[in-house]
């Protein structure tokens, strides 16, 4: 019987209550450790297709009669259209439709550089772009607000400031033997997904719309597009079969989808709207810059007495207040914690979620602050973290569903102990050191998410669900889970996904939630199909159900005898066995979080300021690991992206005009393979016994969180300099070294 219950849902740290329907019988978790398929390395099911260029991304789709859209974007950070003339654009070769600022989401009062003002559909994208260049606009330029601190002073905020306090900071301050206070800054960084944001919209009559889109959430796109055009949701079909990266920037439809839909409606033809790399780096979201004024106090034994943080987020024109103070509130046991977060509303492009939004920034500040405290107290930084380990969530006094952070620390020890050896390899020019940083994040996923499993006469199985694989390998993980439950080799499982018309509702692929949300639903669906197989096998082979199990493609009886699965499914000819499953609730009254620690080894050229990261060891607790191979790829990707944020990436705005100076990949420097250090991945792999039928949490975000702080702390270990501002360019490094040499020499850390 279906049961209706009320449960709590968390997305990126924000909790809401909701109703869900759950299945009656709950599956026991599998035993810990590698099983037949789950927990073993499995190459990507679609790896070959991707490598050979056969995978069809949204960027590859060409529908018959398809037109191409191009968007005129504001060249000014704040302006008003005095007069616009689209006449020449309309008459340009190949042009089929032109939309002016009167059509939403286009605007005649662009509030940031890159905001969409007008759009053209033409036979080719070159024609569309040429026509856009023929649109004549007379601009009235207005004074933009670009300084986040100024915005906070003027109370120009995206939302109410978020103030949270537990205990009393003043009391903690009075009890402190040592206090450290510092200001940290993080820069604006850009997602730079390989596939730029794009969508193709095709109307079928005037009340049915198909959207092919590069997205992290086909159901979210379906809901928002249906709402915008006043359509029943089932009249909107959203397709995303292969996806070239999103990192949080593709959680919704975006202006380009609406532009494509409007132009498709105006022309009666399918329209593709694909951002160029420059547009991508102007207006597809960013990780906003932050200014963090932090204070920490401790007793001489290292016990934290208080934590206090003021966080200014340069949110931009739109977006939301990322929880930059989250790590300060969650990572350590500390009675007195106060955080206030501001989101400055500026004439700059809106932020978007970006791989652990807020926590990447906040962890840089907090974990550097902690190392500065360790130095002051002359306590080993790892030991300081151990002494302040939290056994429960102090924000709302809940137990953790599982927490293996101490085990992560234990595994970090041998890497941490290399400190002396690494430092000893320093010479007059190159200083070497080791640093570490801890990490906390969400990643428990939640309901609803559904899956179907279909078994055919040939004894092969298909997992059918409306989820998307955003390039993380989650489809392969689903195949492993179904294979485990059905006792089939993984190559006999097909995963059909990425189409809202061909499968049930599935989770957003954000907040590290795909595996923890979808995996349990897939297992439940496979178990439902397995149950039916056992039941019919019992009848066919005259055995009791309890002696039968599925293994290696066979139905196996514990009292002797085994039969190939296709022997029984073959009886059905074209008949099929259908299983269905859903994601159950998260454990009531518990806090589900992911944890980890990274240890970085660096070398700093103290003459040129060059920083070379030589090695990063990543130790994370994400519950049960489904595919260690896919998991290590996620860790490597997170660390490389984190490395870029730490050393070379920065969106630069012209301080007087607000114009983006780093729109191309020539100007905006993401790491190349030559910059990638040795990366060692070590996942604790202990199932969370309270979380779902799998015990798996998400891993997409955790690995990027501690990287910057671990590197900065290693730099301090190597040179004695405090780097408090990202990116650590050569100039920033030299500045920090100059500053350090002006201060009295500090005692050796942990000596």
């Amino acid at each position: 019987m279906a049961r209706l219950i009320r449960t709590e849902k968390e997305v990126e740290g924000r909790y809401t209550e909701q109703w869900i329907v759950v299945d009656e019988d709950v599956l026991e978790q599998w035993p810990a450790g590698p099983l037949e398929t789950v927990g073993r390395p499995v190459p990507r099911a679609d790896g070959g297709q991707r490598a050979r260029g056969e995978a069809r991304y949204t960027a590859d789709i060409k529908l018959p009669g398809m037109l191409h859209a191009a968007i005129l974007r504001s060249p000014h950070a704040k302006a008003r259209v005095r007069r616009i003339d689209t006449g020449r654009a309309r008459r340009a070769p190949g042009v089929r439709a032109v939309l002016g600022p009167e059509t939403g989401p286009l605007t005649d009062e662009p509030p940031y550089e890159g905001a969409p003002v007008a759009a053209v559909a033409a036979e080719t994208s070159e024609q569309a772009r040429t026509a856009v260049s023929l649109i004549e606009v007379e601009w009235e330029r207005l004074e933009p607000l670009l300084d986040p601190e100024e915005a906070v002073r003027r109370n120009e905020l995206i939302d109410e400031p978020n103030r949270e306090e537990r205990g009393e900071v003043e009391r903690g301050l009075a009890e402190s033997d040592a206090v450290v206070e510092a200001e940290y800054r993080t820069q604006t960084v850009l997602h730079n997904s390989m596939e730029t944001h794009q969508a193709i919209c095709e109307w079928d009559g005037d009340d049915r719309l198909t959207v092919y889109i590069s997205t992290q959430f086909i159901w979210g796109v379906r809901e928002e597009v249906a709402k915008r055009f006043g359509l029943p949701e089932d009249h909107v079909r959203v397709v995303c079969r292969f996806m070239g990266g999103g990192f949080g920037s593709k959680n919704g439809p975006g202006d380009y989808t609406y532009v494509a839909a409007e132009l498709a409606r105006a022309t009666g033809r399918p329209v593709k709207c694909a951002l160029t790399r420059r547009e991508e780096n102007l207006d597809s979201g960013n990780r906003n810059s932050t200014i963090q004024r932090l204070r920490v106090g401790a007793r001489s034994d290292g016990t934290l007495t208080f934590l206090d943080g003021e966080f200014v987020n340069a949110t931009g024109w739109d977006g939301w207040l990322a929880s930059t103070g989250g790590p300060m509130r969650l990572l350590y046991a500390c009675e007195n914690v106060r955080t206030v977060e501001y989101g400055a509303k500026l004439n700059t492009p809106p932020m978007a979620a970006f791989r652990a939004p807020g926590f990447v920034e906040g962890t840089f500040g907090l974990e550097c602050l902690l190392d500065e405290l360790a130095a002051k107290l002359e306590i080993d930084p790892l030991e300081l973290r151990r002494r302040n380990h939290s056994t429960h969530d102090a924000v709302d006094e809940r137990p953790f569903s599982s927490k293996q952070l101490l085990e992560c620390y234990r595994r970090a020890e041998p890497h941490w102990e290399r400190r002396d050896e690494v430092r000893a390899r320093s010479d007059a020019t190159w200083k070497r050191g080791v640093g570490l940083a801890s990490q906390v994040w969400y990643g428990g996923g939640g309901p609803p998410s559904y899956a179907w499993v279909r078994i055919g006469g040939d004894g092969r199985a298909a997992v059918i669900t409306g989820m998307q694989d955003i390039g993380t390998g989650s489809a392969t993980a689903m195949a492993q889970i179904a294979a485990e439950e059905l006792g089939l080799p993984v190559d006999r499982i097909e995963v059909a996904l990425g189409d809202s018309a061909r499968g049930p509702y599935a989770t957003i692929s954000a907040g590290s939630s795909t595996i923890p949300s979808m995996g349990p639903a897939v297992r439940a669906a496979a178990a439902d199909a397995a149950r039916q197989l056992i039941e019919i096998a019992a009848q066919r082979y005259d055995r009791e159900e309890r002696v039968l199990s599925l293994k290696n493609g066979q139905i196996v009886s514990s009292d002797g005898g085994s039969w190939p699965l296709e022997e029984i499914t073959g009886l059905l000819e074209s008949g099929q066995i259908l299983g269905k499953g859903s994601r159950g609730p998260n454990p009531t009254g518990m806090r589900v979080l992911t944890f980890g620690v990274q240890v970085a080894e660096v070398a700093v050229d103290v003459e040129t300021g060059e920083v070379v990261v030589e090695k990063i060891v990543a130790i994370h607790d994400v519950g049960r690991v489904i595919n260690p191979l896919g998991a290590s790829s996620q860790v490597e990707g997170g660390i490389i992206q984190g490395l870029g944020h730490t050393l070379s990436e920065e969106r630069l705005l012209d301080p007087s005009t607000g114009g983006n100076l780093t729109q191309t990949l020539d100007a905006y420097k993401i790491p190349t393979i030559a910059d990638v250090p040795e990366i060692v991945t070590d996942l604790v792999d202990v199932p969370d016994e309270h979380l779902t039928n799998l015990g798996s949490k998400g891993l997409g975000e955790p690995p990027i969180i501690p990287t910057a702080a671990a590197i900065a702390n290693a730099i301090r270990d190597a040179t004695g300099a405090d780097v408090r501002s990202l990116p650590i360019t050569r100039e920033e490094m030299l500045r920090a070294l100059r500053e350090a040499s002006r201060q009295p020499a500090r005692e050796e850390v942990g000596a």
Partner: protein
Amino acid sequence: MEVFTPRSLAEALRLKAEQPSAVPIEGGTDVMVELNFDRARPEALLNLNEVAELRGWSRDNGLLRLGASLTYTEAMAAPLSEQLPALAEASRTVGSPQIRNRGTLGGNLGTASPAGDALPPLLVEAAEVELSSVRGVRTLALEDFLVGPKRNALEADELITAVLVQPSGARQTFMKVGPRNAMVIAVCSLAVSVDQERCELRAAYGSAGPVTGLVTAPLDEVDSFPERVAEAASPIDDVRGSARYRRHALRVLAERGLQRCLT
């Protein structure tokens, strides 16, 4: 846009004389960027890829003749790399393998960017540029060829046909500072040589002034040379780095370069 593909140097020079606005293209790693970014819309391209006379390198009585179509990959290979080690080092820092396979010396000279990585090692080796037209052939010292930021001494009907170098045999090196390890335009770069025979210190900097600049000093002025290099440069602030940092880095690179060449 028209594309001319001459099969010989004579044909190329004739086409260039008839169509002086035609833009030469070798590897296209600069030209195509200009076109794609819509910074240039030439009426015609003069494709030099089929002109055999521009390819490869040769030696005549010790004088090296590097064809305008010589790629970085070719410059990195022995035995040429042994003759011009700093050029080989610089070539290894250029772009990616794809860019090094396509990009040419002729193109680097044609672009004449102050960040061109082939230029400092060639300046240190006192290279000359051979320019040809239907009117004849002339050679210019590289210093005189580079007349300004992205400006060179080519006449409208001329093509770069070769770079001529008498290898000095001096110890030499090339160093480049960039915000990451590959695919970077230099924040600044420096080629250094110590010519014991001629008793001369030579250094040429890139990305630290409107043109790649040469600094020389007598051999016994080693101590003051780094400062001299830093002072000779006239860097600016831009997205890649500040003038102050560039000057500082040049001083460090000069010290290191001298150290390498003197030990």
